[in-house]
């Protein structure tokens, strides 16, 4: 699995962090942490600009986070026309902030900043894969 299949539309495929997709397939949403200075990264990255090194390890974003904000997008850009409306949001998992989609099943009236969410891989049409926030 490569980044060609990540999200609804992918724009580029090559990154040293492509193991992210393999973890997604196995049901895990992962971030990285610098082994030297302990800085956490999401989106995951294999390089640490803080200590200018590349000694990082993967860790899973587990448990409940808190939804920081969201928006229901009614007009998607090219490639997303059929997909709208969809809901984008940012959630905080113990200081690791993740941007992504909220589960399609959630109505706007059910969504409130501050509510508890978890983040899980999500199968998308056409054999694609992403992740989504689910209300807990």
């Amino acid at each position, binding site marked *: 699995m490569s*980044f060609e299949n*990540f*999200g*609804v*539309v*992918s*724009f*580029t495929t090559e*990154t040293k962090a492509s193991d992210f997709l393999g973890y997604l397939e196995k049901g895990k949403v992962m971030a990285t942490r610098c082994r030297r200075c302990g800085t956490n990264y*999401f*989106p995951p990255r294999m390089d640490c600009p803080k200590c200018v090194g590349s000694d990082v390890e993967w860790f899973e974003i587990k448990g409940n986070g808190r939804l*920081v*904000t*969201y*928006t*229901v*997008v*009614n*007009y*998607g*850009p*090219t*490639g*997303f026309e059929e*997909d*709208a409306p*969809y809901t*984008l*949001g*940012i959630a905080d998992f113990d200081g690791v*902030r*993740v*941007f*992504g*989609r909220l589960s399609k099943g959630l109505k*706007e009236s059910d969504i*409130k*900043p*501050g509510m508890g969410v978890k983040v899980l891989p999500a199968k998308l049409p056409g054999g694609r894969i*992403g992740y989504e926030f689910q209300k807990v």
Partner: protein
Amino acid sequence: MQDVAIVGVGQSIFSRKCGVSIGELCFEAYTEAMEGLDITNSDIDASIICSAPEYDKQRSPAGLISEYLRLTPKPSFYIETVCSSSSTGLRVGWSLIKAGLHRVVAVVGFQKMSDLTSREAAERMSRGGDIIWESPFGITMPAGYAMYARAHMAKYGTTEEQLAKIRVKNSHYGAANPKATYRKELSLDDILGSEVITSPLKKFDCCANADGASCIIIASGDIAKRVTNIPIWIMGLGAATDTMTMSGRESLTGLRCAQEAARQAYEMAGVGPEDIDVAEVHDCFTIAELMAYEDLGFAKAGEGTELIDGKETYVDGKKPVNVDGGLLSKGHPIGATGGSQIRTIINQLRGQAGEIQVQGAEIGLVHNIGGVGQYGNVTILRR
């Protein structure tokens, strides 16, 4: 070292479809900027051309624009920070003069959004986020600002009606601006009843793409005093950035790049928010103007709504903001926008702003943001 002044400003009419070439569009702005100045194009030592390249059909537009304005064989080059490109151009021009390399510099911003079909524009829009990690989810510019709006509402109790009041104000002034794309007054009901683009932002909370150009002529102090009766001095320049990823933002209720740029600009100018007589802020969305009130220190965090509720940002209020209609009325030709904001403030400080003149304005501020709070520029000008 020499002080640096703005001696000339101009902008084209902003419109949905200009029907002319980018060279012709820039010429319209250049003509207004050169009006009444005791210099000719051969006195301009360099030109800085600003736009957002993904919307340009012309490759390397600096070559074409410098030829059309007959600024060859002097140096010309291109500067980009998306929507704040021409403020960044001003910053670079200032430093070229301050360093003594040049004495007079033209900063020309433009965008001809109508060169692209709406489908092509939507395709560009999809690549405005981090293309590996965020664009695959369908992030857009309005969606980015909408997430700030939702977070602001959640934290401070800001309402959709308060956001709409900003558009009411800006549409009121836009109606009187002969160079604005939208010249219709909008009521609170018009705005609140318009379709939801990306919740909580509705159609009239958003500015629209436009065609347009702007031009700023800057000069070293000795030349400035010679070529114009009313040089306007560049007192403070602040510039900062924030992450491209939305997940990297530490705050979602204010723009860190604007707060930092403002801090730098106030410090350099030796003034504070209380000293600003008139301001132009980057109201690409209503929430953006509200956050600007707070990020610039015109109000405390969470209290920007008091300014609009009390009509304090109208011409006769405590802190007039966007009294030319703002981006919401003028339209947003990306590379030209910062220059247009600067033009409005220059006209205010010269006392030549006509109906929207803020009486006795001496110190003005321009807040110009690129992307969803990625690039921030704050400029403080003084008569």
